[in-house]
């Protein structure tokens, strides 16, 4: 008997007009794991994230988070329940400083009294000490991704969805990020679900990988199983060949 | 963000100081010393020179300017040793707050004895709070009835009020129909939805009922209306004999065009309250469509008196067209003011410019001749304690061959009215 899943998606479907972006997707996430979600461009990964976190209302299917049905629930309520995310295209609060951005996340669970301590803790955890008083609008992309991670971590999620957190990062930056994510998983027990193109990160971090193509799950398994899966190879190479 | 927020308030302070120092004008002594007279008597023209009402304000200002020139050329205020008038002007903007600001500005800068203005009633009442407080005589050219009913002490209005206009318009049609042997019984009353439009319409409605007419259609519409065809169609459907209309300005053009275009021209269309059908600008904009339209007026440009002919000639030389109502009203208003100053000089030789003395002089005025009466619609100028002249009469102008001509009251008529409209379709 496997443990109660932290997130259970069943039959999730999302259409935009005639386009079916996500088609009948069912996925289970076990608590405390790191799961990778991969697939070619346009496979529906971001749409799936949006449907889970309440930015889109799914057309069919259900999302259960810790046993609660959160289908169509507003994002901020889902966040209160313990799930947060980052974005593929960084959505920074450019006029806020790094510290204040983290503060916005920290208000999720803390009142005015403890807030400063929490902010300090998260900033230290995400190694953003040097930048805390800088405005987000002035930061580099790599740092912005880190700040996005930090503000999500500040909400104290049990499940964190990361949408291409590694995109556009250099090797060193990537290593730093992976270290933080690993610590987040190990020390705080946060379940992670990462959408990623950077294979180094997927293979290095994830215990299990789900592959999406054209809105459907085409494979699921350990990194080793996935890299040998002919369907996955076809999905990737096939797409590339067309290009 | 900490703390820094407040730091820039220093700059606020600096700016405030700068802004204020820019405003401060050296203040002149508040009241002229009793026996010693100033070099000239300052009077103000406060009119809407910008914004939606600028068209009227500009005319009014020119009328006042010519009047002051004429008064000074005629020897100034004789009872005050021929003291000359000095005119100062100010823009009153287009709404009540700018009017109030304008009043404050002109009073604090120039300390005028009296102010002429502000054409738009809403602006006039707003500004009159200032003139009351500062005790400056306001000679109003705004026609809404309520201008004089809000208890102002220092406000006088020589011109006929709006309800007198409405009544005159109806009376003119009734007289003309009787003369032409026609039986006009059904009237449609239209007005734009300002207090001015409503005051006019109220006067017209009372007059219509007093004359035993049936009001078959009555509508209030916004002055910025862009399509009059539905109202015109409704008037046609109501089978009105004639239309009494208080338009603002744009809408008069629109309605005239629509009456013609739809082919639903009633037997007569008469405007009330001056603005609209017979203004030179409207006639120009409408071309031949303006023909036969009639309109009540607070001023009679055709009055055959030497003073009036002089004014019309000078005005025409300056602007190229005959004086509009706004110009005429201010011209005779300035002369009325001049007469009041003369009287004050006689009644209170020691302190003629004291506002309370000048007010007494206004209330004592009883004119039946002179330049003021020669340009006045009516032949008697005297004020009630509320500041109105009950003997003021609106005249009716009709566009005949592209020129506005006086057709009513019959004793003042320049030419005979063309009645009913020869192009009427029903």
């Amino acid at each position, binding site marked *: 008997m496997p443990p109660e899943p932290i997130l259970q998606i069943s039959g999730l479907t999302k259409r935009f007009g005639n386009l079916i972006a996500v088609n009948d997707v069912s996925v289970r996430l076990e608590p405390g794991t790191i799961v990778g979600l991969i697939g070619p461009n346009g496979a529906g990964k971001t749409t799936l994230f949006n449907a889970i976190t309440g930015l889109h209302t799914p057309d069919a299917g259900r999302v259960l988070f810790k046993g609660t049905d959160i289908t169509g629930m507003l994002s901020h309520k889902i966040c209160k329940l313990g799930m947060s995310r980052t974005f593929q295209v960084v959505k920074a609060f450019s006029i806020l400083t790094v510290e204040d951005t983290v503060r916005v996340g920290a208000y999720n669970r803390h009142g005015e009294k403890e807030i400063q301590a929490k902010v300090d803790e998260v900033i230290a955890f995400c190694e953003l000490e040097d930048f805390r008083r800088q405005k987000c609008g002035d930061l580099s992309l790599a740092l912005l991704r880190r700040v996005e991670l930090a503000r999500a971590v500040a909400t104290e999620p049990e499940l964190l969805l990361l949408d291409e957190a590694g995109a556009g990062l250099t090797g060193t930056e990537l290593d730093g990020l992976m270290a933080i994510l690993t610590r987040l998983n190990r020390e705080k027990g946060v379940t992670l679900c990462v959408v990623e193109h950077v294979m180094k990160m997927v293979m290095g971090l994830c215990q299990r990988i789900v592959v999406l193509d054209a809105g459907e799950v085409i494979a699921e398994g350990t990194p080793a199983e996935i890299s040998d899966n002919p369907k996955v190879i076809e999905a990737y190479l096939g797409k590339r060949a067309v290009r | 963000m900490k703390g820094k927020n407040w730091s820039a308030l220093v700059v606020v302070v600096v700016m405030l100081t700068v802004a204020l120092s820019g405003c401060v004008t050296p203040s002149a002594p508040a009241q002229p010393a009793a026996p010693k007279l100033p070099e000239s008597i300052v009077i103000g023209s406060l009119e809407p020179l*910008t914004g939606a009402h600028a068209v009227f304000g500009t005319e009014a200002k020119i009328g006042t300017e010519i009047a002051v020139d004429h008064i000074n050329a005629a020897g100034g205020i004789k009872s005050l040793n021929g003291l000359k008038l000095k005119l100062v002007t100010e823009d009153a903007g287009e709404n009540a707050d700018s009017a109030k600001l304008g009043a404050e500005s002109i009073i604090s800068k120039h300390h005028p004895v009296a102010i002429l203005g502000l054409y738009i009633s809403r602006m006039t009442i707003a500004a009159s709070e200032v003139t009351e407080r500062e005790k400056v005589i306001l000679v109003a050219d705004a026609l809404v009835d309520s201008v004089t009913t*809000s208890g102002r002490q220092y406000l006088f209005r020589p011109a006929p009020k709006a309800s007198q206009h409405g009544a005159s318009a109806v009376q003119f049609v009734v007289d003309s129909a009787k003369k032409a042997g026609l039986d006009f019984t059904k009237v449609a009353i239209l007005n734009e939805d300002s207090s001015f439009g409503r005051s006019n319409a109220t006067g017209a409605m009372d007059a219509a009922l007093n004359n035993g007419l049936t009001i078959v259609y009555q509508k209030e519409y916004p002055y910025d209306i862009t399509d009059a065809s539905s109202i015109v169609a409704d008037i046609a459907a109501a089978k009105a004999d004639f239309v009494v209309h208080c338009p603002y300005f744009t809408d008069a053009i629109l309605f005239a065009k629509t009456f013609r275009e739809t082919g639903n021209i009633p037997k007569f269309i008469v405007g009330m309250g001056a603005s609209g059908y017979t203004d030179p600008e409207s006639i120009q904009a409408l071309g031949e469509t303006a023909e036969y339209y009639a309109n009540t007026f607070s001023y009679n440009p055709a009055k055959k008196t030497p003073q009036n002919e002089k004014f019309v000639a000078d005005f025409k030389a300056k602007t190229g067209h005959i004086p509009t109502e706004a110009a005429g009203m201010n011209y005779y208003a300035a002369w009325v003011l001049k007469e009041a100053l003369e009287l004050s000089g006689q009644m209170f030789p020691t302190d003629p410019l004291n506002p309370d003395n000048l007010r007494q002089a206004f209330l004592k005025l009883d004119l039946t001749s002179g330049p003021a009466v020669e340009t006045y619609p009516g032949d008697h100028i005297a004020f009630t304690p509320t500041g109105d002249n009950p003997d003021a009469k609106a005249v009716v102008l009709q566009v005949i061959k592209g020129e506005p001509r006086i057709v009513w009251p019959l004793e003042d008529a320049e030419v005979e009215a063309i009645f009913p409209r020869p192009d009427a379709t029903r």
Partner: protein
Amino acid sequence: MNTKQRTIKMLPLLVGLVVALIVPLIVGKNQYNMVLVTTVLFYGVLATAWNIIGGMAGQLDLAAWAYLGLGAFTSGTLLLRWNVTPWLGMILGGLVAAGFAALVGYPLFRFGVKEVWYALSSAALVEVLRVAFLMWDEVGGPVERYLPFHRASWYHMRFASYVPYYYIVLGLLLIALFVNYRISRSKLGYYLLALGESEDAAEVIGVDARACKLKALMIYAFIVGATGAVYACLFGFIHPSFFNTAQSTEVAILGIIGGMGIVYGPLLAAIILVSGREFMRANLGSSLESLYLAIYAVVLIVIALFRPQGIAPLFRKAYDWLLSRVVGERYAA
């Protein structure tokens, strides 16, 4: 932060307050100058209140005079019908405006009307109210309703001079600034700034965007509504022309030019632009008619194009520089 630093930072506030308090002593004799400074402060209140919904929450609200008009009509009608003092009318006017804001804001935010569409629908709201009040003859109608004329009456909030009005508006301004300041330091303020930048990003980290926007809109409407009651007394009448689209847009413009989300920014912009405008009106008005409008527009375009973050940062830099010169780098903010 030590005491000395704190003193330096509070200094501008104190100096500003002192100057604001003694302004009537300097120009109080001249009623025109008094009404000018009152007008400047009045726009300052509106723009400062706007900062909550527009600057912080990033919702480009163009309906300031809708709430102002509601406040004016509430207070004015109460005074005319039941002789309720405008002092109470202020609060009730603010409440009516805030209630109306909730009525309108809830479905707008519920259905996700944002950005340009929010701006347009708020602009439309002003027009809707203007027409509705024109048609509503019992309360509005085309004829101005004059408040009882009194030379001076505290009960009726009518005074023979602008000095009391100046202090009332100054009081409102201080309240608006204080509310702004408190919000900017609170959870609500950080939430508003965050959702103003990106609603999605704020939502997923626990910000209830709808509720926050609604709160911001209601606080703004309350302040503006209360100001409307004073406005009615200042001008002595109520009329549907209070619902003015152009003036509402101007309030938003002051907020944008001042610097979105910066507490003192809109006030700065109001002080500079409104006094500049009135100065131009007074000096160019009657001779060059519309020139001042054109100049105003060009200034607006230039600032918006070349200082899109507003003028407040410039002033902060100038103040920092000044501080570093006067008291040395150490205490500079």
